[in-house]
């Protein structure tokens, strides 16, 4: 896998939500692929790991699922954001930005001081 990074625990949920926010309804495979693409090939993802993550989000009520047809006429289970999910994306994204900003200050304090 070379220098590709594995997906960290806890970030996958946000990636899934964000993907659904931008892409609309999508099936599991599509979500996994999209995450890989968005990361510019930096992330390596076992596609199987998205299913438990999707289930967890569904249990929490952030996403909903239904069976539909894919563009090439295959039956697939499509996931979409619920209103609660939309709010959750915003909240999580904000939290995440805050966290990275703080981390950034720690990692390059010199810049701030100069």
């Amino acid at each position, binding site marked *: 896998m070379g220098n590709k990074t594995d997906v960290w625990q806890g970030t996958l949920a946000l990636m899934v939500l964000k993907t659904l926010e931008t892409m609309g309804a999508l*099936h*599991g*495979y*599509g979500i996994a*692929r999209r995450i890989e693409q968005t990361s510019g090939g930096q992330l390596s993802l*076992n*596609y*199987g*790991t998205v*299913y*438990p993550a999707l*289930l*967890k989000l569904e*249990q*929490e*009520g952030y996403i909903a699922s239904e069976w539909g047809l*894919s563009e*090439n006429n*295959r*039956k*697939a*289970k499509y996931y979409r954001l619920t209103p609660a999910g939309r709010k959750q994306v915003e909240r999580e994204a904000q939290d995440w930005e805050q966290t990275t900003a703080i981390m950034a200050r720690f990692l390059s304090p010199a810049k701030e001081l100069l």
Partner: protein
Amino acid sequence: MRQLRVWFLRMAGSFHKESRDRELGQEIESNLQLHIDDNLRAGMGREEARRQALIKLGGIEATKEAYRERRGIPLLETLGQDLRYALRMMVKSPGFTVVAVLSLALGICANTTIFSAINALLFRRLPYPDSDRLVGIWNQSRKERGTQLVSTGDLVNWRKQNTVFDQIELSNTFEAKNVLAGGGGSDRVGIQYVTPGLFRLLGVQPILGRLLLDEEARPATVSSVLLSYGYWRRRFGGDPHILGKTFFMDVSTVTVVGVLSPGFDLLGTGDTDIYQPISAEGAAAYQLSDRWLLAVAKLKPGIKLEQAQSSMDVVARRLEQAYPDSNKDLGIRVMPLRDALFGWTRQVLYPLFAAVAFVLLIACANIANLMLSRASSRGKEVGIRSALGASRFRLVRQMLTESVLLALVGGIVGLALSFWGIQAFVTLAPQWYPQAREITMDSRVLGFTLAISILTGIIFGLAPALRASQIKPTESLKEGGRNSSAGGRHRARSIFVVAEVALALVLLVSAGLMMNTFLRVLHSSPGFRSNGVLTLEFRLTGTKYLDVSPMEKTGFDIVMPQVDIFCRQVLERVKALPGVESAALIDWLPMSEDRTDGPSREFAIAGGPAAVGGEKPNAFYSAISPDYFRVMQIPLMKGRYPNDQDTYSTPWVVVVNEAMAHKFWPNQDPIGQVITLDTVPDEERPREIVGVVGNVKQFVSAMDPRPEFYASYLQQPKKTPSSFTETRLHKSLVVRTRFEPKSLIDGVRNAVAELDKDSPVFGITTVRDVVLHSTTFERFIMQLLGSFAVVALLLAAIGIYGVISYSVLERSHEIGVRMALGGQSRQVLQLMLKEGLILSSLGLAIGVAGSFAATPLIATFLYGVKPYDLVTWSLVSVFLMGVTLLATYIPGRRATRVDPMVALRCE
């Protein structure tokens, strides 16, 4: 909230797994196909496209497993698996299941029944508002144990000095008996004397009329009373116009001002018919020391029991100094009202509770044994499981699930049986047992049953589970391999059997002592011949018989001459009836329940000591008609019986019983001694002792006879202190008959009743029944303990039978070798018997030690038998030993029939 939703969904996710699994399979499959389609489009070959997609997915099964873990709750799901498996195991061995469930059900039923009884009296809230603030207050001597009753004077002082109670009220502790006459009949009634505020304190409402007013407690020409709901229905048919009607109680007139709502039964006896107010004013000396009441109080909000107690301790000290005559060494004790009313039942119920706990423990040991035996046949199963990677914890959990499930089934069956158990308890309980009808199942009882079911499941399941989980797969999986842990298992089983025998012995000894007591009570002579004697009671009532007008001035009532005339007429009429041999009167029949005056009268011995044994001479005293001793066939030991020549105007005489002669004149002839009763100082005359008669047991037949003396009913003072008025107006008639006494019931009753319509005649029965009835309590305890002991014995016998049978099975190889080498079957039998003997002797030894600790618990129920009664102990031990040996002998016999060829070929 969101987490709750998640858990709910996950819980739901634990069900309908198959359809959910199918859906997941479809989802993964369709996504896989999408991926393959993409790969094909990217120019891969069909095979390669599929392989790459699978690699990227990370394995279908692993994905499914991760998904499943997230979907449900793994612990719950394995619990479900374990439960299903346990159910299958139960169904697969129905014999084991039935035996286990039944013995558990018996044990749990016994426990639930006794717990229901305890719960009803000692745990359940009293049915009054703010019941946690209600307390009972007693006096308590600093020198002796136990509590003392309260006087109206105490109440006045406490009300004045306390800072911790909102309200203090009084009630008597058991119903006083009197007669309510008028309105076309007269009735024996139970009276609860209360201060009027008691009903307000307890939040009790009338369903008709009103409660008593404070001013109605003061003496008045017409006194106001309340009726209990039960009496109102029974006697007056629920007459709505009862209010304002007047009746007579003795010579006083009472008027009904209200009827209480149903269900009010403070004392728990269900015997109260009438509530009559008592006044609590003034703290005169006699009002202070006349202690016969219970104080009921309500704590001020926020005051704790301990605070109240320490506050009342201070009050007690202060009163001690202010009233040294009546309050010396007298403390005050505050306790929850429930304890004050029913706390005494603990000494009955707790030993019973201990007994049923033993029964359940024995059942546990038994089932643990059965499970251990089964564990060896399940060794292979456990081996496979652990070889497949089941952890020890997982194995133990699965085994425990099985045993707890078993216990729960036993608990459910036991709970069902308890409905009958409670009924049996209520039926067996003596009549005075408080609030027997309140013994019901409630949520606390159900909770208790659930808790002990689970607990027993863990208790009997833990040892077998731990032992089974130790089995090493390598050993159990070897074909025909001998199980190395068999020895250890055998030891564990032996320990259980020893424990069972020990517990059973403790129960048997207790039951044996109780039975011994009961047999003694039953067969010991009460001092008279009860066969062929009919008895009834009457209570004279009205101004013809009693004058209370001097009471205010002198403190005495006057008994009118009409009483003696009435008595003489009764005797004449009854003696004239066909079939009657003789008839006589006594104040109260010995062993009857209602004797309400104090147990004894004080007297002075002419020329004798002023005190005997540290107290003024006193003894039981009865006024009798001269024929009493002949009717009851109480033997004359010395001197003469009283006779018809002893009248009011001749010298007054008494006869004493042997116990009295022995106590007061140990080395002298009591005949010719002179005593003077203290009751009515100016009217009593010195009485010469003219005879000594045999002892009669005055109260419960179990108790040893106490000193007692008798005088003719004609030689009684005209005046009587009001505390003895009831005794002067109440008489028990005894009639010795030539035929079956019951055939004369109507004749005798009419002969008495026709003399005075206003004086009730009641309690007509045979003296024999009275004597039998007095032993209800002993019978009750004996029947309960006895049935528990029988169950215990059975279980222990089954246990020892099982262990020896299994031992025979396990050692059949060894036995085969022995027989093949020329061993006699007798020797083989001896071998097995020896094993049983060792186990039961060990159990007996431990049981004897346990019994030493346990029997003092029931010492208060034993009469004429010491807790360490050697005969009982030996008989019971021999009996138990016999049963265990029999339980050994049966499987032992089987060992002798082992065919050496078969046994050796098994290898």
